[in-house]
Each structure stands twice: as C-alpha cells, then as structure tokens.
C-alpha cells in the first residue's frame, strides 16, 4: 500500500509540476501527451524489458509471446538454457521466429523491449513501479516540451519547448546508457558475443555458464 501511495505521489508531482508551467492546459491534453512522451521514452531508451520463458519444440519456428504488462516493441535476444544466444528474429511484433528448426524440445528465454499500452483508457499508465521514481524529471521535461510545441495555446512556447526537448533527449540517452550498463557504474558489461560462442567443449572449457548473461 505504501508502495502504491508513493507511486501515486510521483504521478501527482509530475502532473502538478507540469501544470505550473502550462497555465490553461486541460488534464486530458496532459494525459494524451504523457502517453506519447512515455512511448517515445521507452522506444528510444529501451529501458523497459521483460524476460519471457517459453519452450521450443521440434520443427516449429514461430512462438507467440505474452507479456505481463505493456506492449512488445522489438526483440533484444533469445537465449537457450545455456545462455547461448539463438538465431531468432521478430518479423511480426510479438512472435519469435527462429531461423533454424530445433530437433529437440528445450526451454528458451526471450528478452523483449516494451512500451506503454491503452492510450485514453489506462491512467495512471501501466508501467513498472521503478520508472517514475528514477526518471520522473526526464518525463517532466518531455511533457513540458511536447505541450509547449502545440500551437495557438496559452502555454505555447517554441523556444522553451526546444529547451525542454533537448533535456528530454539527454535524459533518454542517459536512460539508454543506464540500461545498456544494467544500472551499474564502471562494471564490465562487455562479453564475447554469444552468437559466436561454441557449444563444444574442445579445450576442456565448460560452455555451461551458470551465471546469467549480461545484456
């Protein structure tokens, strides 16, 4: 319950601060623009991911995925049970397509990038709890910038809009970098590309990595 109250407080803070700089704006317009801001933020930062488990079966190439919340934007990777990256693509959004069929049944994990759903219906937007406390200022800058770009309103201000959109884009870049570095500072996130990794044990090296692969 405390968690939910904190979440609502951040939403109240975000819209409250936005209204200060946008006199005369309707709450409806703010919510509509907020959806667009969230979509752009998630699309460009790739910071909202989900790991979805499924089972690959022989002679089947396509596997529809089901998310717990949000909408799939793109596929980041498909890992097999040994954390090897498989050759997979997503020509149809939401369905993993393997380039080659498997000969035996085995568990797989798809990592997908997601964005918001249900414009006009779902408010507050259905996003993970950690997004707003961490990125509320970035979203505020995006919301102010988008609103101020609308022409012929009492809050229209192209110059200030440009300023806020620049800060928004900087924030997106920061969120993307944090995502790539898996929210670490100075940690080594690079690893040999897993698609090049051999599954043989020639040379006495075990390929069965017990640790999860970094992104």
């Amino acid at each position, binding site marked *: 319950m405390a968690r939910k109250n904190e979440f*609502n407080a951040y939403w*109240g803070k975000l819209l409250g601060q936005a209204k200060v700089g946008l*006199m*005369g*704006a*309707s*709450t*409806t*317009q703010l919510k*509509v623009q907020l959806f667009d801001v969230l979509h752009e933020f998630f699309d460009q930062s790739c910071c909202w991911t989900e790991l979805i488990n499924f089972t690959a079966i022989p002679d089947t190439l396509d596997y529809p995925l089901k998310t717990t919340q949000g909408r799939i934007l793109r596929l980041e990777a498909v890992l097999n049970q040994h954390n090897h990256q498989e050759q997979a693509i997503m020509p149809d959004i939401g369905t993993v397509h393997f380039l080659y069929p498997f000969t035996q049944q085995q568990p797989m994990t798809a990592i997908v990038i997601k964005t918001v759903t249900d414009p*006009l219906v779902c408010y507050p937007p259905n996003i993970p709890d950690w997004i707003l406390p961490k990125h509320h200022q970035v979203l505020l800058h995006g919301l102010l910038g988008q609103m101020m770009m609308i022409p*012929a*309103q*009492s*809050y229209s201000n192209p110059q200030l809009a440009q300023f806020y959109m620049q800060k928004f884009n900087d924030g997106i870049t920061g969120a993307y970098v944090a995502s790539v570095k898996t929210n670490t500072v100075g940690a080594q996130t690079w690893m040999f590309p897993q698609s090049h990794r051999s599954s043989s044990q020639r040379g006495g090296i075990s390929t069965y990595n017990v640790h999860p692969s970094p992104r």
Partner: protein
Amino acid sequence: MATTPSYHGNFSDQDQPTYNTVADYIADARTILQDLVPDYRYDDPSMLAALNAAMLEARRIKPELFVYNWEVEGQVQAFKAVDETYVDIEPQFRLAIVHGLIGHALERDQEDYQDQRATAFLAMFTQGLVGKALGAVVGGSPPKGKGGA
C-alpha cells in the same frame, strides 16, 4: 474557528461537486442573468439550447476535453431536461461553459447594452477555454433615455 467540511478530491476530478449537473449550470446562469423568479425570462428550453450550443462551441475550441469519449468518436453531450444529468467537463473549464451559456442566452436580446454584454460573456467563454485571463464584464447598466447620457 470551526467550519463545515470542504470537499477535497481523491485523484478523481469526476467527484468535484461544483457545477456537476445540468441543473447546477442553469441555476448559476439564471443567478448571473438575474432571472430567478418564475415565470422565467429565459425558459428551460432556451437555457438548454444555450448550454448545448456552449458545449458544441467548446468542442470546436478545446477538442481535447472530449477526446475521452473516443468510443463515440468524441461526440458532445446533449441535454434535453434541466435535471441531475452529469455534465462531463473538467472542473477548471466549467466556469467557461457557464459563461458560454449566458453569452448565448443574452444574444437573443435586442438592447444594445445586452449585445455588448453577450459579446463580453462569449469572449470570457473563449478565453476561459483557451486558458487566457478573463476579460472584463461590461454593459452592466442600460443606457439612459434621450435626455440622459
């Protein structure tokens, strides 16, 4: 000093009680029009027509107020009786609707000072919807006769 409890919202503007229903809007409009004694100078059908016209004009000037009616393609509410039907307008724009209602009602009067007053209320309606400061209410008293002025 103790006072009566006031309304405080709970993240839901749908519960804000000021100007909630058709009857609320028309009652306040009649107060401003100084038309509180039956038989009314502005009868119910004419007030409903004025409210409906104000809503349609609000759709033109501030379309996003109606975007949440997307299931009916953003249609505007229409009212047929002075009753407790909820008028679905965000709280901060409800006063503008009252001004639009009054402006439309005043348009039918032919006296010059009422024309000026109607124009002032319609301007307040527009300014209230687009978020700008409201103008002055003008034309508060009728012009004097030939020997006046």
